[in-house]
């Protein structure tokens, strides 16, 4: 029940942020922010109820990890969005957040085989959750960058243009998110490799997940390298971030769908 209420709250927040992006206005902005805080508070309650106090106490299942990922994305946005005055990014972040939360709802049973459970597993899950949360934020910022660039090139400097931050701000924000996510993903991949004994995949699905996790790492590494070495920024860096996140999404979808 709490899951459904939280999902509805996230959906409402999505709609309000989209309306704010489109229409603007202080009232819509306030409602959108309040609705997301409310949804996040419900989510915290749900998470505590289901994971910490519920049947899954101490377990490492996909449901809990996805739920935590969604929660970190929401909280990360609420904290950093306020600090960096990027309120409008909620319009891009809340839909992804809703999908992650609904994705968590698809998996309500643990899929972690008892064989791979070890003291390293909590670290592996935690760094991956935080890393993917950072990439999700980077993805949303990159989408906002491309939209803003499109508005400027199309010479449309009306409402949406006015509400989105400058290209410069968006580019820097995307870089920061990737800089946070990349080392976390690196640790996640290394701990994953240790847990599975190299990259020995037990199933085809697991092999695909591993391959795309590495692909995401390679893409984000390339984005960072090209930013430093060739001065990549703006649209190219945004597209690189989208490709990297697409690879990460395949991994997430792989976990949601499971080995079946």
């Amino acid at each position: 029940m709490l899951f459904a209420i939280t999902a509805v709250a996230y959906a409402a927040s999505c709609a309000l942020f989209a309306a704010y992006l489109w229409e603007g206005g202080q009232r819509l902005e306030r409602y959108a922010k309040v609705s997301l805080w409310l949804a996040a508070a419900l989510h915290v309650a749900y998470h505590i109820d289901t994971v910490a106090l519920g049947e899954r106490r101490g377990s490492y299942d996909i449901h809990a990890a996805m739920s935590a990922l969604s929660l970190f994305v929401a909280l990360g946005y609420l904290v950093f969005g306020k600090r960096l005055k990027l309120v409008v990014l909620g319009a891009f972040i809340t839909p992804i957040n809703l999908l992650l939360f609904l994705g968590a709802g698809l998996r309500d049973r643990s899929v972690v085989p008892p064989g791979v459970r070890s003291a390293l597993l909590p670290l592996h899950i935690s760094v991956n959750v935080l890393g993917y949360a950072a990439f999700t934020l980077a993805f949303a910022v990159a989408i906002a960058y491309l939209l803003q660039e499109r508005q400027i090139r199309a010479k449309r400097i009306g409402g949406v243009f006015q509400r989105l931050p400058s290209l410069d701000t968006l580019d820097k924000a995307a870089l920061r998110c990737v800089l946070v996510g990349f080392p976390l993903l690196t640790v996640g991949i290394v701990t994953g490799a240790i847990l599975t004994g190299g990259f020995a995949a037990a199933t085809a699905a697991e092999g695909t997940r591993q391959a795309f996790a590495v692909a995401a790492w390679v893409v984000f590494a390339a984005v960072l390298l090209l930013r430093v070495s060739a001065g990549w920024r703006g649209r190219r860096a945004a597209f690189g971030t989208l490709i990297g996140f697409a690879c990460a999404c395949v991994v997430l979808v792989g976990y949601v769908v499971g080995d079946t």
Partner: protein
Amino acid sequence: MTGELVVVGLSHRTAPIAVREKLAVAGDDLSAITKSILEAGAAEAMIVSTCNRVEVYAVGGSDLGRSVRATLTRRAGGAKLDAHLYEHRGTEAVRHLFRVTSSLDSMVVGEPQILGQVKEAFGVATEAGTIGPLLGRCLHRAFGVAKRVRTETGIAEGSVSVSSVAVDLARGIFSSLAGRTVLLVGAGKMGRAASQHLVSAGAKLLVTNRSPERATALADDVGGEARPWESLRDLLVAADVVVCSTSAPGFVLTHSLVAQVVKARRHRQLFVIDIAVPRDVDPAAGQLDNVFLYDVDDLQKVCNENLQARGRERDAAEKLVEGEVGEIERWRKTRGVSPLITALRAHVLAAVRGEIDKTAGKLRGLAPEDKKSLEVLAEAITSKVVHPALVELRRAAQADPDTQEEVLGAATRMFGLPDPRGPETPDTEGGHPVDDGSSQKGGASNAHSRAEPSSSPPSELERP
């Protein structure tokens, strides 16, 4: 009441610049002419004089319009102005004032300068002592309406001049213009205006021109640095915003030059504003990554779109103005019964106080707090007693003159008050409609505030 609000004037809608400039009033002239309007029979007066309008706002009787017209004609050296002058009275004049102050009557709807200009005119008139309760109330209300129109509608959104659109665009690309470098290529008039806007937003200006003397002169004029034309490529690498306004017949910034520059800049964003005709920048350069090119047509198109968007907000703004005109009308009508309301309240309060004082005199050992409580009691009883009568009087004020006369006469006779049709009592509360105090609990402090009339005009219209 000593009259109604009258506005006589001309604006960009009714008179060409050649006529407007004959009437333009500035500096010391402003208060002198305002005073001459008073001598012409006005009780209150104020003159708004801008490049787009000259208007006299005055309070007076039915002949006032003619006197003001005559004064203005004399001011214009006897030129025939009748075809250009407009005149509004009463509600129409209030509506006009609200529309002007809210920039609904401006050449560029939503422009912010007019509000400052009306405020300035108000300041001059206040200093000259020509503002009274009616004009004071209407102007304060007008400033409030203008603020509401700006914040509650989109009438002022989006830039509508080429220079400010350029600054808006630059802010969409760079988080801040402070510390950014603007390169002005050529010393054209338009480029100068645009770069001045960018510099006032905090950017550093470099100027380059084929003629170094002109570059130096312009740089000195706008607070920039002149650079040699030969170092154009290096300057393009260093700049964040480039404003081109040369009179060169061909492209100054070719596609290949900009492509080289982009590489040398390590893909930092470059905003190029080409306001030269013929164009200085190859349009193909605008397709390069991280290069954002706007020519004069693009900027003008944005201006036009913003103007259209403002036009769409006009209905909402007009509706808002209309509501406020209704408010001021209700206040104006209630103001007619204010002297009677003041007299009625004072009459009842005096009677209640008298009785309380009599009783208090018989009581021994009354502490100061007890006396204060009795004062509050007197206020409270007065409010209770007069409240129904005041409600009726205010209602009558909004009715037709016959009903108003009838109710006012009845109240005067019932309470044994002086004839309200006698000489008008000055507006004892600086233009506020008199409150019966029924909504206030602080009787003692309330009584104090009534005893000392405020000299400053009210900032908010009290709703009767």
